[in-house]
C-alpha cells in the first residue's frame, strides 16, 4: 500500500505540480534527488528538498518502552497544592507534563488555587519543590497582586519554619516574596484571538525561559464564551489549542493548568451544572478537577484522570491560601510529609 503525496504536509501548489507529472505516491519520489525533482516537476529547489525531507525514512517517529517512560517520570517531582488531602489523592501533587482543567462555579477558589500553584512551583529544591518559574495568562482580569503577595509570604514563612540544615538556610536567603514575584510572568489577553496567538507563541517563550515549569490560563472559557456565535468553529479552535498545549506539556515536561466555568444543562424536568465549553472540550485535558460546594463546605473531586482514582477531598481558602479544611490538626501531618520530602530530595 502506498502513501499518497497529498497526505504529506505540503502546500497545495506543490502537491498539484507533483501530481501533474504523475508522482502520486511517495514511492515514486524517494529515489530522486532535489535537482531531479525540481527539473521534472517545476517546483523550486528548496521546495523539492523539503519534499524529500518529508519522504525520508530517518525522520519517522521513535518509540520508547514503558520502562524508559517510567524512569523519566520518576525524575519529575509534582507541584504541591498545600492541601495535603488533595496532594495525597494526586499522588504527591499536580503532576508535571500534564494538562489540568479546574472547573467550578464562581467564587469556589479556582483562581486561588492557580495563585497558590504559581507560588508553590517556586519552592526551592532543598525543600522538596521544583525551584522553577511560572507563566500566568490572565484573560478575566482576576489576577490580584496583593493576594499573591499574601500567599507568597505564607509560603516563605512555612519554609523558614522548616529550615534545618545549611543548604536550606542558604536557599532561604534568596527565597523571598520579591524573588517569588520576579519569577512569575504575567500576560493579559483580552480576547480569543490574543489567547490563541499567545498559545502559539508558547514554544518560543519556553525556549527563551527554560526554567518555566508551569503555565496557568485563567480562564480559558471566558474569551471563548463571549461573542462567539460560530460554535463549530469555536470547538475546532479550542480543540486545536488544547492539542498544542498537550503537545507542549508532554515534550517540555511542563504542567498546564486551565480554569473553566460552569454552565447549565437542561435535561428533561430538571437541570444540572456541567463544565462549560461543550462535550468535545471535556476530552481536552488529561486531568479534570471539579470544585464545588457540598453542604456548605468546599470539595475538590478528581472527575477525570488516567492515573488517579476518582476521589473527593475537602479544602478551604484562608488568608494563607489554599489549604486543608482543618489546618490545625493537619499541620503536624504536613510537616512530617515535608520532612519526608526533604529527606528524599
Amino acid at each position, binding site marked *: 500500500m502506498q502513501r499518497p503525496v497529498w497526505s504529506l504536509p505540503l502546500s497545495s501548489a506543490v502537491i498539484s505540480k507533483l501530481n501533474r507529472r*504523475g508522482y502520486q*505516491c511517495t514511492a515514486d519520489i524517494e529515489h530522486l534527488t532535489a535537482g531531479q525533482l525540481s527539473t521534472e516537476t517545476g517546483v523550486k529547489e528548496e521546495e523539492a528538498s523539503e519534499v524529500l525531507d518529508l519522504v525520508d*525514512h530517518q525522520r519517522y517517529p521513535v518509540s520508547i*518502552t514503558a520502562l524508559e517512560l517510567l524512569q523519566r*517520570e520518576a525524575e519529575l517531582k509534582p507541584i504541591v497544592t498545600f492541601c495535603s*488531602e488533595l496532594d495525597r489523592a494526586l499522588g504527591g501533587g499536580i503532576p508535571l507534563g500534564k494538562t489540568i482543567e479546574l472547573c467550578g462555579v464562581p467564587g469556589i477558589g479556582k483562581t486561588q488555587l492557580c495563585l497558590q500553584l504559581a507560588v508553590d512551583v517556586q519552592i526551592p529544591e532543598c525543600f522538596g519543590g521544583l525551584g522553577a518559574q511560572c507563566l500566568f495568562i490572565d484573560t478575566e482580569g482576576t489576577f490580584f497582586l496583593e493576594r499573591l503577595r499574601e500567599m507568597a509570604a505564607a509560603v516563605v514563612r512555612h519554609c523558614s519554619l522548616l529550615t534545618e540544615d545549611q543548604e536550606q538556610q542558604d536557599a532561604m536567603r534568596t527565597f523571598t516574596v520579591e524573588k517569588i514575584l520576579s519569577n512569575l510572568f504575567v500576560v493579559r489577553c483580552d480576547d480569543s484571538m490574543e489567547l490563541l496567538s499567545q498559545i502559539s507563541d508558547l514554544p518560543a517563550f519556553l525556549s527563551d525561559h527554560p526554567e518555566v515549569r508551569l503555565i496557568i490560563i485563567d480562564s480559558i472559557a471566558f474569551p471563548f464564551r463571549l461573542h462567539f456565535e460560530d460554535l463549530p468553529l469555536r470547538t*475546532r479552535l479550542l480543540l486545536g489549542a488544547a492539542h498544542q498545549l498537550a503537545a507542549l506539556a508532554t515534550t517540555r515536561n511542563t504542567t498546564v493548568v486551565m480554569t473553566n466555568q460552569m454552565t447549565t444543562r437542561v435535561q428533561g424536568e430538571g437541570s444540572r451544572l456541567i463544565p462549560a465549553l461543550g462535550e468535545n472540550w471535556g476530552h481536552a485535558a*488529561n486531568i479534570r478537577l471539579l470544585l464545588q460546594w457540598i453542604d456548605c463546605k468546599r470539595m475538590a473531586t478528581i472527575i477525570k484522570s488516567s492515573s488517579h*482514582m476518582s*476521589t473527593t477531598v475537602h479544602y478551604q481558602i484562608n488568608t494563607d491560601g489554599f489549604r486543608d479544611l482543618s489546618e490545625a490538626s493537619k499541620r503536624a501531618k504536613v510537616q512530617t510529609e515535608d520532612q519526608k520530602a526533604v529527606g528524599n530530595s
Partner: protein
Amino acid sequence: MVVLRAHMCPGLELQLVRDLREADISTVEELVSADLEALAQKCSVSYKALLAIRRVLLAQHTAFPVSGADLYEDLLSSTAILSTGHPRLDELLDSGLYTGELTELSGGPGTGKTQVCFGVAVHIALHLKQGVIFIDTTGGITATRLHQMLQTESSSLEEQIAALQRIHVFQLFDVFSLLDCLCSLRRSGLQPVAVGGACVRAVIIDSVSAVISPLLGTRHTEGMSLMMQVAALLKALVKDFSVAALVTNHVTRSVGGAVRPALGVSWSHLPRTRLLLEGPDRSTHSFSSLRSATLIKSSRQPCHMRVEFDLSWWSRSKEVPSAKRKHS
C-alpha cells in the same frame, strides 16, 4: 498510479523510458492499456519487446486471487483472540480482541477509555508475553499507572520489568506524525525496536479523534481524506500482520441528547466492533468507579448488549488506598 522507471523490469532501459514519456506514457497503467503496435512504431522498438515488458509489469503489479478455502485455512491459523484482562469486557467482546480486526472504544470524558487501554496493554504484555504498540496522542499515558496495574497482576519485579519493556510508546500530536508512524510500522513489519523484543500482537491508539477532530467540519475536505488515509493504513496494518487494533474515540451529542461516537459515518465503517462506555451516575455527588459498556456494532454478538464493569478491577489489591477509606 506507478511511474515508469528504468530497470523496473528486464528490457525497460532508460532510453526506452524517455521515448515512452515523449509518447505520453509515464505510468504503468498507461503502458498496459496502450495500443502496443502503434507505440512500437512511435518509439522504434520491437512489438515483442513491448509485449514482454507488459507481461512482466502485469505480473509484478496485479493482485492474485485466493480461493476461499485457502483463505479460511489462513484465517484459522493466524487469528488469535486476545483477552482484555477484564472478564466483563471479554463477555461483551466474545472472549476478547480478535487479531486482524479493529475494535473501537468510544465514551465521554472520564468514562474509562484510557484505563481500558492500559488494562489491555498490561494484560497482553504480562500474561500473553507479547509486544504492544501504544500510540498516545493526548499526553495521557502515565507509566506509573501501568506499573501500578502490573503490580496488581504480578508480584515479581522481573516480570513487571519485562512486561514494561514489551510496551512500546509513541507520543504523537498531529495527524501527519500519526501517518508517518503507521507507515513506518508497516514498512518495518511492526518491529519498532530491534532489541530481542517479543512479536507485536496489538496496536492501541489513544485517541484517534484527538488528532482528527480539529481537521473535520471545515469547508476543505483534506480533513476527511486524511481520516480515511489513517483508516486505510490501520486496516492494512491489522490485516497484513495479524494484529489486533484498539482505538479510542470521543463522543458527540446529537440533537435529541443521545450520545454517539464522533468522527462521523465514514469512520464508523472501519471498526468491526464498537463499544460505547458510559460514565458514573452523576446525579449523586459521590463518584464511583462503576461504568457501563454497550455494544453498538458487532458481527458476533447481538447489538445493544450491555454490561456493567468496575474500573477498580485494575486496582484490586489487599490494601485499600487511604483516600478511599476516608470517604467510603
